[in-house]
Structures are given as C-alpha cells and as structure tokens.
C-alpha cells in the first residue's frame, strides 16, 4: 500500500483525447519526495530543451504535494510546473486553496497534460471517472464565473475548480490559474493552459488517503496545532506587524500600511513616497477595506485566515490574498478603493497581481516619455485609474498595444525598441519583481535575488530575520526559543549582526555566513514545495511550526519513508539541483543570476562576485553556475551529467564549461 500519496498520476493527451491512469515508481518518491520534486524529474525526462513553451510537447503538470490530504495542518498546495513563455525556463508556481487535497481524494497525485486540444475543453475528474468536456460555452468567461458555471452544470457544488480567464485563453505571458481564494500566478502558467486549450481542471474525490503510522502522525499534527496557538499569542517583537505572526503576510487583516506605502516604490517601481501614510489616508483605506471585506477565510485544513472575500459595490464578489491588495493601487498612484475594485476584474481575467500592474505602469511611463504615443493609446481616458482599466482590457484581449504588453515588460520593451528597454528595469530573468528599490546591498538578499529559481523573493526568503535588531539584549531574547535553526551557528550569526559598524551590511553576514543562511532558507522552501506545505506555516515566517527537525518525522510516519534530517536535506538538494539542471540545459548561466541593476543604490561588484563564486561552490556548481559532474554524482544524478556532457554543457572529466551558450533566444 502507498501512504500519504496515491501512487497514481493521470496522463492526459489533449491532442488525441487520451486519458490514462499510470502507477508511479515509489523509488521516485523516496528520491524526489513529490510535488515540485517529482515534477522536476518528469520535466527533465520528458521535456528536452528544444521544446518551446507553446509547443504541444511542453507539459503542464498539476501536482498535489506529498502530504496533501493528510491531517498535516496547512498542507494544501498545488504545484503547477511547466516551461514559462516569459522566462523560457522552468516555472513552478503554486496555489493553496482546496484543489490539491481533492485531487488526492480522487485518487491521483498529479495531472499531467500534454498536447493541445483543438477546441476549448475542461477536464472533469470525479474519482475513477475522468472526462474531457466541451468548454466552448465558457469562452471568454471570467475565472470565478467559470468555476460557478461548471459547478452548476455538473451539479457538484463540492467540485474544486482551477480555471483560467480571458488572459490565459489569449496566452498573456503573465496569465494566472485561479482557484477560488487562491491562484498560481507567476511566470505565465495560465498562458500554457490556454495554449493547450484547457479552460479548467475540475476535481471531486471521495477516496481515502492512508497514513503509515497513524497515531504518531496525528501526535505530530497536534504538536503543530499547539505551537500555532502559542505563536498566535506571542507575536515576534521588533519586526513590522505583517512579519510578527504566522501565515502569509496578513494583508487582508492589517489596516496599517505605513511600511509598504512608504518603503515600496510607486508607479513603475520608481517613486518612493516617504510621508504618504497620513491619518486621513489611514481612515480612508480602513474604511475602503472594511466596507468591501466580508470575511477572512482560509485554505483547506488551516486555522490561519490569510485571504478575504471582497465585495466591491456594484461588482461581483471575489477573493483576495496577500500583497495584490496594494500592487494595483501603488502602480497606478491611486488609493485602496481603486485597488480592490480593479483586482476584481484582474481576478476574473486571471492575471498575476505582481506583473500586471507593473506592465501597465511601464506602458504609461513609455507614453509620458514619448516612446509610445497617442496613436498607441486610442481613446484612452486621461485619469490614471481609467487608463489602468483601459490597459487591462487591451492586454487580456491582446488588442493593439495590449498585444505587445501582454508579453511582459522584457519582451514588450524589445519589441517597442527606441530606448524602451531602460524602462523594463525591474526584472530578473525577464520576470517582473516586487517594486522595491533600496540603498545598501544586503549580501543575503543579493544571493537570493540572483540565484532564486522561482524568480520571486518571497519564494526563497524567510526564517532568518530580514534586518538586524539594534539592541543585543533583544537579539538574545530572539534566539532564546529559536529551536527551528538547523544548526546553533545561525543564532550566533544573528547575535553578532549589527545595523551599523563592522558587523553590518554589506560585509556582515560574511560571504560564508550568507551562503549558509540562503541555503537554509531555500532548502525549507523546496521541502515545502515537495510536500505541498504552505510557506506561511513553514518556510516564510519567523519561528514556524514546521522545520527541519520535525519534517523527517512527518514524512516517516505519514508516507512510510524512512527519513532523517540528512536524508531530507539531500533529497531537497537533489531536486533543487534538478531544477537548476533543467534551466542550465535551457541556456541559463551565471550572467542571468543577477538582481535588477538598480535594486540597491550602493553596489559592491567585487563582493558580489565573491558571493556568487562561494555560493556556487557551496552548492556544487562550477563558476558558470552549472552543477559539476562530481556533485551530480553525489546526488544520484549521473543521468544529468551524462546529458550535460553529451550536449557539451560540461566536458568529460573536467567541469569547466565548454563554449558559451546564449540564454537569449529569438522570440517566435
């Protein structure tokens, strides 16, 4: 018997309309756990680097995490993996909500889509009964509306629906997959779903998920619940409000936005407004949120309330979470009322809340600077809010300038030319980033921005405080009950970290310490993404209930796989390296591992080189960022080094790279 996982994947060939239920190899679970780990293995095996994102050969994998569907609190994430049309690298966006556990209860760990459907369809997975159904009547429907219509037509109010909106159908490079209160938004995976002709994947399951050692597993779950209660009663002092507790940042509950509005950049990530947060603004924004927010809500099996139901006057109700609360507001230089209203349209269209506002602000900046002109914006309103609505409608329909902008700032700037590239200034690996521009280089963040292959800072940071505490006594208090650290040395790193003087940024944490800290933070995210655990209860917040010391027991008693800290760390390193290998094979190299040029004002080129050199070595990568033959061997990934050698990415017996291969491909 398989425990925690079902041991079956659904393989769906959309071109031929063929559906197969395929048993998986339990040895793969042991090596790559599940979720992101096994997704990476499948993409490596089956999607060679020649495959374009919009090729029928590209796969779109919906995976539940290994522990989804078990009572492990907060373990509900769906990991969607494919090749991104925007970055042309491996994308692995995730969503919480209710979809992944439902898939497990239906009897599957993954749904693997290949090929392309000639007509728009949706998939209906109801335990053993799996159908490809006509979705022509859902053409152009909003993502939330689609879910509602499908539940009605199937007469299955309990079906969980992951759907795309118009943006996905029109292959907008930052289209999302929406699922009620959650979405997998980053890197344009909704566009791949649209390209495959799939409007929605709908699941209902009423089967059992088994636990290997039930009493032990439930005991661990109870400990987690008890610790959540403790943490809820004991917010971390000395950090900003949204970082004090557990869960993803409590943006739906928090009214105080002084920190975001005065420290993050407005417009096209350009303007800092230092005295923005007045009493008057606070009153108006609190009123806006309270008048539209009907309830704080959660994902499956989680006591946190990170999302909210929002009902803007005169518009349909939708659900929102986290920082999309402010992205539209700040990009349009507007207010919260506008932000909550336009986000309703954006959710129905199914677009990413980070990239979309930035693309629109970028377009308006090009207009102000004469690079785009009136003829690019026929009949566009003159006010900022009106322009945002106008642009959003053009982008998701790919009409006029919207067709160019729908490819994101990097590709749009290339196409527009005439100096537009300088305005696409906030990207990493062609992907739009949070609007943050800071002063002094932070070595830990430098490494995370440069090398994070989720290409999103929130998907690698966490656990370690973002800034030093000014007083040593406060630092001592902080480390006292910090049992989550994988090694005692991390406490010392933090104790000695000062805001100013010798032990401050950028030379402290030292290069070696920075490597240790980044590796720990990244490792916890990768473990979460294989297990399906929400980062909000694990890798993202300070002092979380899940950590490297209790995870091995969860896996042993839940999935029946013998696990300890070393073996788990090794597994995480294995599939993390495999993600790297997929991207290396697609042309990614050291030159792509860099934060936006203007992210920090004070840069230290020599230090930055040393950071990358040391971190690459630490990870077992050569100076180009390519995993070496020896390190691949240690991770049981000889098949990767063989492929690298065959392709001339590595030379035999010697890990120096052969000739330079360009990551830049000509866009089709």
């Amino acid at each position, binding site marked *: 018997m398989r425990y925690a996982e079902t041991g079956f994947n659904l393989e769906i060939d959309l071109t031929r309309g063929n559906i197969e239920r395929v048993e998986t190899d339990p040895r793969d679970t042991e090596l790559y756990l599940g979720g992101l780990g096994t997704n990476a293995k499948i993409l490596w095996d089956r999607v060679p680097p020649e495959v374009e994102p919009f090729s029928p050969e590209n796969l779109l994998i919906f995976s539940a995490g290994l522990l989804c*569907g*078990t*009572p492990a*609190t907060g373990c509900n994430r769906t990991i969607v993996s494919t090749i991104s049309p925007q970055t042309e690298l491996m994308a692995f966006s995730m969503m919480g909500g*209710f979809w992944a556990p439902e898939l497990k*209860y239906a009897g599957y760990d993954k749904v693997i889509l290949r090929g392309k459907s000639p007509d728009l369809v949706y998939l209906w997975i109801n335990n053993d009964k799996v159908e490809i159904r006509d979705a022509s009547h859902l053409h152009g429907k909003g993502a*939330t509306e689609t879910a*509602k219509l499908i539940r009605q037509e199937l007469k299955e*109010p309990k079906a969980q629906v992951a759907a795309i909106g118009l943006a996905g159908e029109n292959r907008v490079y930052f289209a999302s997959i929406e699922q*009620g*209160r959650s979405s997998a938004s980053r890197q344009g995976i909704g566009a791949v779903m649209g390209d495959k002709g799939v409007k929605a994947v709908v699941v209902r*399951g*009423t*089967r*059992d*998920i*088994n*636990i290997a050692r*039930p*009493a032990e*597993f*439930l005991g661990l779950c109870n400990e987690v*619940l008890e610790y*959540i*209660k403790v943490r*809820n009663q004991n917010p971390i002092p000395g950090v900003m409000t949204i970082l004090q507790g557990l869960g993803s940042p409590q943006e739906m509950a928090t009214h105080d936005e002084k920190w975001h509005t005065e420290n993050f950049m407005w417009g096209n990530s350009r303007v800092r407004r230092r005295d923005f947060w007045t009493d008057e603004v606070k009153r108006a924004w609190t009123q806006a949120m309270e008048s539209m927010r*009907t*309830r*704080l*809500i*959660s*994902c*499956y*099996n*989680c*006591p946190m*309330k990170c999302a909210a*139901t929002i009902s803007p006057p005169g518009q*349909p*109700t*939708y*659900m929102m979470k986290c920082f999309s609360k402010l992205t539209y507001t700040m990009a349009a230089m507007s207010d919260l009322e506008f932000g909550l209203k336009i986000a309703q349209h954006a959710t129905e269209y199914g677009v990413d809340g980070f990239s979309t506002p930035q693309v629109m602000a970028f377009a308006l900046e090009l207009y102000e600077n004469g690079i785009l002109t009136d003829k690019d914006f026929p009949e566009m309103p003159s006010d900022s809010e009106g322009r945002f609505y106008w642009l959003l409608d053009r982008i998701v329909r790919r009409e006029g300038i919207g067709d160019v902008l729908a490819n994101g700032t990097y590709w749009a700037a290339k196409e527009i030319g005439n100096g537009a590239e300088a305005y696409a200034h906030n990207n990493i690996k062609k992907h739009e980033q949070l609007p943050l521009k800071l002063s002094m280089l932070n070595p830990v963040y430098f490494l995370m921005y440069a090398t994070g292959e989720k290409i999103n800072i929130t998907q690698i940071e966490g656990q370690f405080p973002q800034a030093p505490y000014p007083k040593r006594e406060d630092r001592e208090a902080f480390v006292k009950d910090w049992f989550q650290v994988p090694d005692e040395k991390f406490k010392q790193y933090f104790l000695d970290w000062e805001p100013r003087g010798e032990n401050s940024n950028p030379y402290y944490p030292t290069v070696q310490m920075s490597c240790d800290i980044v590796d720990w933070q990244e490792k916890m995210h990768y473990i979460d993404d294989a297990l399906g655990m929400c980062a909000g209860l694990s890798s993202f917040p300070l002092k979380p209930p899940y950590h490297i010391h209790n995870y091995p027991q969860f896996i042993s008693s839940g999935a029946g796989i013998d696990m300890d800290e070393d073996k788990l760390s090794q597994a995480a390193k294995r599939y993390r390296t495999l993600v790297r290998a997929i991207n290396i094979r697609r042309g990614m190299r050291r030159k792509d591992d860099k934060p936006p040029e203007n992210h920090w004002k004070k840069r230290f080129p020599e230090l930055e080189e040393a950071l990358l050199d040391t971190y690459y070595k630490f990870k077992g990568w050569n100076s180009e960022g390519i995993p070496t033959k020896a390190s691949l061997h240690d991770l049981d990934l000889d098949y990767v080094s063989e492929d690298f050698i065959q392709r001339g990415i590595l030379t035999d017996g010697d890990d120096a790279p052969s000739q330079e291969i360009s990551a830049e491909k000509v866009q089709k």
Partner: protein
Amino acid sequence: MGEKKKKTIKSIKIDVDKCNGCRACELVCSAFHAAPKYSSNNPARARIRVISEPLKDIYVPVYAGEYTAAECSGRDKYTIDGKEYDECAFCRASCPSRDEFKEPDSGLPLKCDMCEGEEEPLCVKWCLNDALVLEEREEEVEEEEEQEQEELEIGLESLAKKHGMQKIMDALARMSKKD
C-alpha cells in the same frame, strides 16, 4: 409520570460568523473514525460538514444527526442578515434528498458520536477559530421506558387518526400472527 433522572447533554455550539471555511473539522473527523484510528483521511466520510457558498459568504458547519428514510415534503429557506441559506443548510439528517452524511461507498448513514472516549469531539479541538465549541449541561429527563411508552402511544394515535382505529387493530393482529 416516572422518576426523573440526570443526563449529560453534549452539544456543539456553532458560530457561523467565526468559521473560516477550512474544513479541518471534516478531515479530523474522518481520521478519528477510520479503523484503525487515524489510519485514513477522507472528508466524504466525515460526520460533520461545512456547508459553504464562499461567494455568498455562507459557511455552516453541520454535524450529522439521525437517519431519515424519507425526505421532507416541504422545505424552508432562511434569510439571515440578508443572506439566503439553502433549504437544507441547517439540517443534520442523513436523508435521501442529499449526499451529506453517507458513507461514499455503501451509502450507509453517518451519525456524530461526539468522538466517544475523547475529552472533546476532535472537530471542536481542531477548530482554532472557535466556530465550534463544546457545551455540556445536565438535564433531568423522564425514565426512558416511560418516555418510550409515551412516544409509542403518540405514534399510534396519529396512525389511528390517519387510517382509522379499526385498520390499525387489523394490521396489528395480522402482524402478531406472523410472529
């Protein structure tokens, strides 16, 4: 009237305003009632359900009550604070009109047993938002035999009203011959 006797009544106080819709109650209920205990998880086997319509802001945790062979002939709709609740939203019955509270394989009815043997029902324990709170109170009840007798007579009376006393007597006579 018979003698009074003390009985502990357990009930779950449900605050629909505090429910965040996470369904941890369903999950842990199914785990507790698995054999061996906690060995499997399947909310479709749970004896508690969160009846929800997120876009209408409706979240009603309902725990399973008695099985009923026939569905109601008339049904209600409630409007509370401007929200219209579905006809069966508050009903605890395992009933032919819906899928709730039935084993998914056999269709056999499920009924909440307040997690016998545990300090409190696990749905209550796992609801950190206090949408579910256990309440216990002592009540004086009639001796059970007396009560049953009374119930039987009420039932027979209503049957007699509907069919006439003679028919009931005939039916009873036929039934007793069969035995």
